[in-house]
């Protein structure tokens, strides 16, 4: 890799031994993927994937402490993924004990480390950090050192920023040195689509099901999606952005997609059109039958497949303000239709702390509370990742949550029927 004099000096120890190791990490990471140079990180803020004080992450806390002790911190402040604990979310005595005394016993310690490393503020915890309320929204063309698969794919695709699917720890190291290696999605060539996806469904496809199908097919490649503008329009309004947020999270977790282009909608597709498609791109046609095939092939891993759900999680990734409002309307209407006053399955909608704050200022908040739905800033994935919750029959319309946990996937409409007691 060709380094500038400044980068060479850092690597040779001009800013201390720990900073030299950070630079070595970033360089070797880039060399592995053929990067020939480092490029400056240009976003105002960074985003870290690690927000959870899991005891198993002690080696990470030790590494973070080395950085803090050496004064090697970033000039960029950062947001981080959602907190793993929220007292508002239902849990039994044993779960409470295991969460607080065993699994997340390092939570306070780690949040203190994050403060020292440059956390934006005490509420800067959300996987959807790019929402307006959270204040970490990169500009078109910004180079990022982010991790969190759903945030990276959103920033690349919907905002036109440039970021690889970095791992946790690499995210903060790129930010500390102020450079990331120029490879993959940071380069023009790496942003070319090697798949053409033709959406030919008879109705608007479920965002998380479509994303899942595409993710499992193209894996880490870049898809150029045609036909979706029929259903989403050609403007990135709140509804389209919320759809793409959920769609992207499914492509990234069910596969390893870091960037997608939507014909006539996402910024690079609008500017460059089919010039973004690489020569020899493969074609994947998605119709109603293909979506059904994907849905039918999800494994049901509950011990009793017919068990009555004990919990419903919505909002992985975190819901937007627009989604909280529209779901309030939908839950109210469905409850009325089904002759119920409150949801019949304990239900948690998750959103960023500052989105919840904004939601609380609207008349929707009291209405949603009246339906029995709980709004929380928790990370449902982290809540679910333990043997106790793993045995619980939990339902969700998040394909990310389905992938990483035992939660069972249903479409939004199916979830609505179940939580409001319809179709008995």
């Amino acid at each position, binding site marked *: 890799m060709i380094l500038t004099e400044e980068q060479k000096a850092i690597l040779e120890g001009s800013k201390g031994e720990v900073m030299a190791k950070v630079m070595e990490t970033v360089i070797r990471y880039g060399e592995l993927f053929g990067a020939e140079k480092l490029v400056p990180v240009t976003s105002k803020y960074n985003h870290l994937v690690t927000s959870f004080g899991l005891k198993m992450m002690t080696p990470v806390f030790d590494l973070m402490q080395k950085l803090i002790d050496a004064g090697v911190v970033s000039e960029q402040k950062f947001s981080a993924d959602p907190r793993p604990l929220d007292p508002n979310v239902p849990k039994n005595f044993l779960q409470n004990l295991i969460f607080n005394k065993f699994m997340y016993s390092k939570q306070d310690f780690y949040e203190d480390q994050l403060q020292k490393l440059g956390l934006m503020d005490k509420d800067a915890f959300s996987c959807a950090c790019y929402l307006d309320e959270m204040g970490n929204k990169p500009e078109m063309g910004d180079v990022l050192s982010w991790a969190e698969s759903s945030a990276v794919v959103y920033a690349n695709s919907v905002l036109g920023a440039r970021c690889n699917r970095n*791992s946790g720890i690499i995210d903060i190291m790129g930010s500390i040195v102020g450079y990331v290696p120029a490879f993959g999605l940071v380069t023009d060539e790496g942003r070319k689509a090697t798949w053409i996806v033709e959406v030919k469904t008879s109705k608007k496809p479920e965002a998380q099901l479509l994303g899942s199908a595409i993710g499992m097919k193209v894996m880490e490649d870049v898809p150029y999606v045609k036909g979706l503008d029929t259903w989403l329009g050609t403007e990135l309004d709140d509804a389209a952005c919320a759809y793409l947020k959920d769609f992207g999270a499914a492509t990234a977790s069910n596969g390893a997609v870091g960037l997608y282009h939507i014909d006539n909608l996402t910024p690079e597709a609008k500017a460059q059109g089919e010039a973004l498609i690489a020569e020899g791109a493969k074609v994947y046609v998605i119709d109603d039958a293909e979506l059904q095939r994907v849905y039918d092939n999800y494994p049901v891993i509950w011990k009793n497949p017919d068990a009555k759900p004990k919990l419903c999680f919505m909002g992985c990734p975190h819901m937007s303000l627009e989604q909280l409002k529209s779901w309030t309307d939908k839950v109210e209407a469905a409850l009325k239709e089904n002759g119920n006053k409150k949801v019949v399955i304990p239900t948690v909608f998750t959103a960023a702390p500052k989105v919840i704050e904004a939601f609380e200022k609207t008349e929707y908040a009291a209405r949603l509370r009246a339906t029995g739905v709980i709004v929380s800033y928790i990370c449902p994935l982290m809540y679910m990742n333990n043997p106790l919750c793993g045995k619980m029959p939990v339902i969700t319309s998040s394909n990310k949550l389905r992938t990483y946990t035992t939660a069972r996937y249903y479409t939004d409409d199916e979830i609505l029927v179940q939580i409001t007691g319809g179709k008995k």
Partner: protein
Amino acid sequence: MKAFNGRVVAPGCVTAEAVVSHGGLNTLASFQKALQFGDKKATCGDQNNPDLYNKELAGKALCLPQTIGSTTGGLVLYCACAMGRQPACMLFSQPIDSLAGAGVILADVWLEGDNVAMPVIDSLGEEFLSYVKDGMKITIKDGGIVEVE
């Protein structure tokens, strides 16, 4: 016995028994439960991976196309190495992905000691993944040569 040639991502020579994932390995889903709950054998917890679910990963020659899923993947691998619960080696049929690559580099730069080592070879080709089966004996030799018998 058949030999395959790949790129050395992390050096080292080792012999171990193969466990094979034909689909992408979801690192978080595979390792989290084992690391969190003290399972020294690192039993795979990914119920969406029929090839590996409930199989031991620590000390095995883990053969796979790439890793997929959460961007915690690299730090999970780093933790597995730091805790001595890593596979004996990782053998990728495709070029290594950015998450696994990060984990390997982090472990190599920031961890010290023999028990944290994990040789990694990538770009072994599709034929490698078609040929290798669970329980086969894998030997990594210098220069990215992987013998399967």
